[in-house]
């Protein structure tokens, strides 16, 4: 942890977790094709633990369902996330975690982009992209 024993965000605001996705009749129907949708991607990443706290990204509101965009036909996934505090040095690690989780969990036809919420911090966005490219995944 970068700050030694000092947490960067010692007292985060905790958000409620959304429940499990409800099963529908279509889910059980053998003949229906379920497309990969926003909620499914969100379900994959919401339980990732924050590097600093024993809390999930969802509970810290780092990821939100409406910032997850999927296009199943074009095989595109775009995830924007919001670091808990503006200058969070953990942001790179969070981005990496999301990216790895998705790489492992999605069919390889998908192209992934995970970014900061763009209007918030464009500079980190670029930095993050570099980081991810450098890592041999």
């Amino acid at each position, binding site marked *: 942890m970068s700050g030694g024993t000092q947490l960067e965000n010692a007292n985060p605001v905790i958000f409620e977790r959304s429940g499990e996705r409800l099963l529908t009749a279509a889910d059980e129907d*053998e003949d*229906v094709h*379920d497309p990969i949708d926003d909620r499914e991607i969100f379900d994959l990443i919401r339980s990732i633990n924050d590097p600093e706290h024993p809390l999930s990204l969802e509970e810290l509101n780092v990821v939100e369902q409406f910032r997850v965009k999927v296009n199943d036909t074009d095989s595109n996934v775009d995830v924007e996330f919001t670091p808990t505090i503006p200058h969070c040095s953990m942001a790179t690690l969070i981005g990496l975690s999301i990216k790895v989780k998705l790489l*492992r*969990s*999605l*069919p390889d*036809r998908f192209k992934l982009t995970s970014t900061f919420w763009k209007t918030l911090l464009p500079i980190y966005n670029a930095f993050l992209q570099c980081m991810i490219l450098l*890592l*041999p995944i």
Partner: protein
Amino acid sequence: MLLTEELLATEEFFFCFVFLRLRIRVRVDGFMWIRIKGLKNGEFTVQQLVEALGLSLTSTQPQTRARGVKLLSEVLQECYGDLTEKEVEVLIAFYENRLKDHHVTTPPVLQGLRTLTQCPTLPSGSAVSILKSLFQDVHVQSLLLPDRACVYKMLINIMDTREAELKGLGADFVFGFVQSMDGERDPRNLLLAFQIARKIIHRGYNLGKFTEELFEVTSCYFPIDFTPPPNDPHGITREELIKELRHVLTGTPKFAEFLLPLIIEKLDSDVQSAKLDSLQTLAACVALYEHKDLAEFLEGLWASLRREVFQTSSEKIESAGLAALTAITCCLSRKVLNSDSEDALSAFLDMVLKDCKHHLSEPDLKLVWPSAKLLQAACRASNRASHIVTAAVMPALIEQYNSRNQCSHRRTLLEVIQRFIQSVKGSESPENEEQVLSGICPSLCCVTFAALSETNSSLQVTATSVLSSLTKQTGLLSNSQIELAVDHLARLVLSDEDDAVSLAVVACAGGLAELHPTVFITNMIPRIKRVIFSESMKQDGESMQNTQPAVRQRCLSVLAVVSTKPCVAQESTPVLLEVLNAAHSGEVGFSLEEAVLACHSLKRIAERVEDTKDSGRCFHDIIIPQLLSLALQAALQGENSSTRHSPLAEEAFLSTMVAVISTACSRLQSKLAGQTAERFVSLFLDGDVSFLPGNSFPSHIKLLANQQDSWKQSQMVCLLMGCVCSLPRTVMVPQMERLLSELEEMSCTCSHPMSYTSAAKCFAGLVNKIPQGDFLDSVLQKTMTRILCELNLAASRVRTQAYTFMIWVAKALLLRYHPTCTTLTDKMFSLLDDADLGPVVADGFSLLMSDSADVLSRGCHADVRIMYRQRFFSENSTKLVQGFNVAPQEKKPNYLKALSNIVNKLPKQVQVTELPALLSLLLEALTYPDQSVQLSTLSCLEPVIADPPPALIQQLEALVGRLLPLTSAPTMKVKIASLRCIYALSRFPEHEVLPFRARVLHALATPLGDKKRLVRREAVQARGEWFLLGSPGGSSL
């Protein structure tokens, strides 16, 4: 023989020497045996032994003397039971003298003394002299650990046997003990020392002026801070030490003046465990104390307790603090009041109230919970405390509630009020004392009813729990208040839409109905009845949208919940029967679901109603005949008019009705049960309808006779099953022989599936209960012949019927361990090869091994032996394997399916032990394309994989090889099950599964893109877990 001291220095020589002098032939390796045997058999005496040891005991070398004493002590250890009083006296005198010797001789001397204290012939007075010289000559704490333990054990021995003598010693004994344990450090010895201290205190030894010393020497260990080293062989735990020490410290009120300041001091500590221990010790010690012991510390204790509860971070400490407060209040309440002394309890409670009460009325309600908890803890202690606290708090709380507007605040206040009501303690003599809450009761009711009328659902839920706790205070609520309460509940049941509220209301109504049944009879049930029927009337009117089937359903379930008393059940069941009547006649539009629900409510009433004569009569006289009559009408109606179809002839409804009848019959007293059985049998055999209400039936009904087209009548046989199969075993079913043969006929010839299955089940239920004997044998003989005959005719039209019949009979016999069962099950195994029946038979094994709900269960008083599944499995698994090996290729799936059906139902412990033998067969089963085989095999593999036996690990290659292709099977259930198995595989020992990692990850990429979301979810989980294999914390990518 001349032996120098140097030669004596070697152990073997020393012993040899001693024994040579005793003229005993010595083998060095056998000397232990000899020395025991010699003394025991009287070959030599202790005196001779001492004389023989003479040289060494009188040696100038202290080491030699020590060895001499050691030998003597060890010999005594073996034979202390045989010593005479005279010998003991001499030995004690010798040992006492030796205590003054060089320090190296002390340990063996102590050992010898300890042995001597165990002697039954210990002369009186010697215990005291031992102790005197022990305390005088030995400094215990400078001894080694085992020797100190030896001293403590000696003390325990003496205390157990010579209590009177020790008490004569007076405070000197306590002083000696205090001196000897002062500074003890080892936990093993501390346990012993605490035991001694506890005995001193509890057995009333005179502490004299050493009370403080004894307290000091034990309390210095408080609070215990001890962590046993890892893999500690002695197994001493912190809890043990804490418990022993607490017994010592809390054992006497004489310690109060020392202990209470110590506790107050330790409560200031930062260590959580110290706080917890202190609070628990406090709660334990005040149980013995009186007011005078506590008086001067009350203020300090209260300040610490308040601080702990207000500022605590841990729930444990909070609850320990509250328990301590309860204990203190309890202690103060014990004091007998007399006119001249001040009232300690009210003084203490005044202090508590002064500190807590104002928090209850602060605007932001921030500290309301801790203060309320403290007050409730005090309130809980005694009746008098309850009076004082509630009188001071409740009016204020109610006023608060009325003045607040915010719902969340009001709910908090209501919850606080509810806890207070719960914690009020009733007095022991309820006749002559006023109820604690009686003064405040009207306003409490006001508040509760007002909250029940609110729109906020959480407020309503809290209000119902307040109401429940109010009613639990016996005799508190007046009749008019209860009526009002029931009124409110009824209103909520009928109007509210919130699920949480209706759940709470239904639960509250259930509790209330048990205590005040009359109000429910006069108020609730008529209202519910009105609503059930009026709502449905409206249906054809314009208020169609407003009709809520939910309300009606809730009404039906409330009727079931409130009917725990027979008198309520007598009122509620007619309503339910009326609903069924209406559903049958079709006048008011009740759907099939509602009819089923009404029937289900009847079943719940049958289960829960108190078992009295009245309730039995009610079911026997009214409910069962009416139900039968309705079912019969529905069945006959189908015959006559083809216009309307009664929902009561539906299978779903009939099976619920079977449940009602069978539950009711299984709980009837035997006389009524016999009558009911007689009625049923005469109805079904002779068409006797005389006991049915609504006398409009044709006179010649033949329900069991096989009329090909009237399946509605023939399926009624399931009701017969519900009755006769659930009777207690003592009740005789009349006309058994005729009944059995008609049932057999029906189950072998009828063409309607429900009818012939029910007939077979009914037959099986009866056969299961027939006592062993000629009658049973002849029945079985006849039945078996018929079944086998029908089954062997390949062209027979009724083979399916005969098979169904056979499997139910086989189950009935299997459950009671009847030997004939084997013939039938063997036939089943041979039928696995059958062209038509093979797959059905394989499924049948699942029926054979599982519990059926409506018949042949323990609830129906059936004869079910324990572990019949294991027995069946162990007797038949080899047959199955053999059959599989010789079967033609296309029949093998049947065997595999049968196997997995059987294994699936076995308890897990048996599965794990039996599986290695069958593993290759199960793995084989995975390769068969039949998806039900795959599915049931996977479901029995999954728990085994989660806890893998070594045999499975050896087959890992085959297992992985077969599981991976299944992840792209055509059906999603197989895919999901196989993915779960692969997930479970990742928990295997890492070095076993790591070689498969790449292969599995590659194969799992395919189901990640599956079209079904559920499959993808399992795949993601399994793949994620496999990625992490071999990388601690999942750091490698």
